């Protein structure tokens, strides 16, 4: 006898739920689907706290071990990694109370706030790269902004098929430079319409098709953003003269005002002497 649609749907749903028998966790609800599996909110009965439980689709224990090695304020800490009775790998991590970066942008944060988010992501990336980890699927949906402004980069990947169109570098296999591409795409994404051309140029350089033409590392990209914020010329953009003068003017406004005042006083004195 054929299974009815409702029984089939029930079986698909029940068989998909993680089997937590014998573990310290109690399932609450599904909170998201990442590149490698499903994330659930769960309660840790032993420590009486809520955690995020990521259940991986297949043999991807390496992902948990990889992330567990990373200790950085912008990388969500792993509490435990293991294997469920049904054979799937899982890891429990801090449950971040916050919103995804794309939802956060809907609240129209200032340019400085947007750049702060990019800097935090870039710092996490730079750290992870030195630890030998690559994200491979950096996108706004994988960046969480907490209620106190804290930021976490989620969903660190180890699968060569990872990546999201629009944020994924064109080359295969993905490497550290591919993360630089995604960071550039993220910068482009957070910029408001008509954002500063210098920042758009930084994003464009990070997203060049040839990895060798991109920034060599996340630190170099962040340094260019910092130069922009300090009113200096950025390496990614050959600035027109008009822009240079305006930038010089705004960066040296006090000096220019002093010079103008000095010239004004000199002029008045000259005028009075010749009366």
């Amino acid at each position: 006898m054929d299974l009815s649609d409702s029984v089939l749907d029930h079986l698909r749903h029940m068989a998909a739920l993680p089997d937590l028998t014998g573990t310290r966790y109690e399932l609450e609800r599904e909170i998201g689907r990442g590149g490698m599996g499903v994330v659930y909110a769960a309660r840790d009965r032993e420590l009486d706290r809520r955690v995020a439980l990521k259940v991986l689709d297949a043999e991807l224990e390496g992902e948990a071990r990889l992330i567990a090695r990373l200790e950085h304020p912008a990388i969500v800490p792993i509490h435990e990694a293991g294997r469920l009775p049904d054979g799937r790998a899982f890891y429990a991590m801090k449950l971040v109370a916050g919103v995804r970066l794309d939802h956060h942008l809907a609240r129209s944060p200032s340019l400085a706030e947007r750049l702060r988010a990019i800097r935090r992501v870039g710092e996490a990336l730079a750290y992870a790269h030195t630890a030998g980890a690559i994200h491979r699927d950096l996108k706004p949906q994988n960046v969480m902004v907490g209620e106190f402004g804290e930021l976490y980069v989620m969903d660190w990947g180890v699968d060569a098929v990872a990546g999201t169109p629009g944020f994924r570098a064109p080359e295969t296999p993905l490497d550290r430079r591919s993360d630089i591409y995604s960071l550039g795409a993220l910068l482009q994404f957070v910029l408001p319409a008509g954002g500063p051309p210098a920042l758009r140029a930084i994003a464009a350089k990070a997203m060049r098709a040839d990895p060798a033409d991109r920034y060599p590392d996340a630190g170099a990209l962040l340094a260019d953003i910092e130069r922009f914020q300090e009113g200096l010329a950025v390496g990614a953009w050959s600035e027109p003269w008009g822009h240079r003068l305006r930038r010089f003017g705004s960066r040296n406004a006090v000096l220019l005002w002093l010079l103008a005042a000095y010239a004004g006083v000199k002029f008045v004195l000259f005028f009075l002497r010749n009366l």
Partner: protein
Amino acid sequence: MDQDTAIGGPHGRFPSTRISLLEAATGGMPNEALERVIALYWKPVYRFIRFKFRKDNEDAKDLTQSFFTTALERDFFARFDPSKASFRTYLRMAVERFAANQHAAANRQKRGGDIEFEPLEEQAAEAESPERVFEREWQRQLFALALDDLRAHCEASGKELQLRIFEAYDLAGQERPSYAGLAAQHGIAETSVTNHLAWARRMLRGFVTERLRGVTSGDRELREEMRRVWT
């Protein structure tokens, strides 16, 4: 409307599916590979042909049978490239080409003949695309085979109680019984009902995975197909 076919079921025990489809096909077991494919895909192909080409039961059965016979003759597995599409998609597209050619040939023969009537039920089913019908039938058959595996396993290992509880709860077509009701009915604690259900679901998941492994090219395709199965 005439009844669907009974071919492709009931589902007996099946050859080992521990190795992937391509390993079986290229490792000197092309017949076993095809057997796995037929066990899982006979009904989806048949339903797809019925809805896509509006064939009646007998014609759809004949076309399905011809497709699998031709597939065996024409080195079907050797032409499957896992880097381009999943085996499921490759097979559906092959069926579509095959049935379209046969359908066109049949139409040429009877051009000027009788008007073809479309059964009412089939018109209603057009709310779903034939591709969606194919995928749905694939899921249905996959679970049906995994349920057969689960039943066989329970019988062989003396887990009839677990099976009965699982069938009473998870296969209930109407209202599901309560855990307390099941516990009272079988004279066991409510926690035992929970444990038996968890065990049966875990086993079912394992059998679904094994069946899928048998008709996919490797871990990557298996993982992608599993995502299409779990809701």
